[in-house]
């Protein structure tokens, strides 16, 4: 598990800020007129597309795959949550950003746990 403060901070910064941005954009795009299922799929795709350039930008400072994969997952999750919420009950921009931010924090926690589990299970396969 990553324990160096610079990279832990970078992971949280990248995912929280991209999540907030995607949540905000999806809150603006998806209102109660949308079919919820359609909004979910479009929101996920939009979130992933929006997060890609930020994944590359943050990656230059904080790591390659370690930034790109969580940030794109955050984009997908924040897009899904914000677009579905917007389609169900409408969503103010600030609340969309908050939902996206917490989606990003959740993704960081889940990927850290997944990384620890995968590495513990499969680390140092030796013939």
């Amino acid at each position, binding site marked *: 598990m990553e324990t160096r403060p610079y990279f832990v901070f970078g992971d949280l910064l990248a995912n929280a800020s991209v999540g907030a941005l995607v949540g905000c954009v999806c809150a603006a795009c998806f209102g109660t007129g949308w079919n919820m299922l359609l909004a979910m799929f479009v929101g996920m795709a939009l979130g992933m597309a929006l997060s890609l350039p930020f994944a590359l930008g943050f990656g230059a400072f904080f790591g390659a795959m370690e930034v790109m*994969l969580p940030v794109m997952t955050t984009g997908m999750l924040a897009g899904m949550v914000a677009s579905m919420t917007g389609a169900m009950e409408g969503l103010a921009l600030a609340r969309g950003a908050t939902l996206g931010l917490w989606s990003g924090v959740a993704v960081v926690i889940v990927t850290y746990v997944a990384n620890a589990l995968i590495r513990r299970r499969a680390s*140092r*396969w030796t013939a």
Partner: protein
Amino acid sequence: MDRVTMSKWDRAAAHFDLMAGYGPEKRWEPKKRELFSRMGEGRILFLAVGTGLDVPFFPPGRSIVGIDISQAMLDKAKPRVDAYPGSIELRQMDVHDMPFEAGSFDQVFTSCTFCSVPDPVRGLEALRRVLVPGGELHMFEHTGSRYYPFRLMMNLMTPLSRRLGPEMNRTTVENVVAAGFQLREVEHVYLDVVKTISATA
């Protein structure tokens, strides 16, 4: 020489260090140093030396031949190579068509290379040919993932990333075996995506 691949990496050389020179190298430095500490006293081939970002992690005093398909990358690597306290000979070369005689090297090292080699199994077979029998292959590579959603993302990104540089969904461990190497060790560095692979010819 694969001209398409060569010109792709010639174009990438100008901004390569901007994208890969700080964050990724800092993050991977401990694992790369650990892997490269296995460099022995014999003849070493380093495949795809790029702009030489890995050179500061090499243990001192080794005798290394570093190859890359892109002359623009090698030109960028030169200051780092000149600062290395040992011997590094740089040569522009395509891994698929290496002119070295069979059994020319005791060890081969790669670093984020087989995400980009156009025909990875043939490239790995070429590495096996230039290694002495029982010679060592040590790789630091990123590969595809078995796990959702990472697998989906990497499959979606590969058509785009392939145009600019690497592919995201390679099956490098399986390719090493398919090329005839004996797999010795695989260590996952990040998820099941970034890993070190060690094998013998």
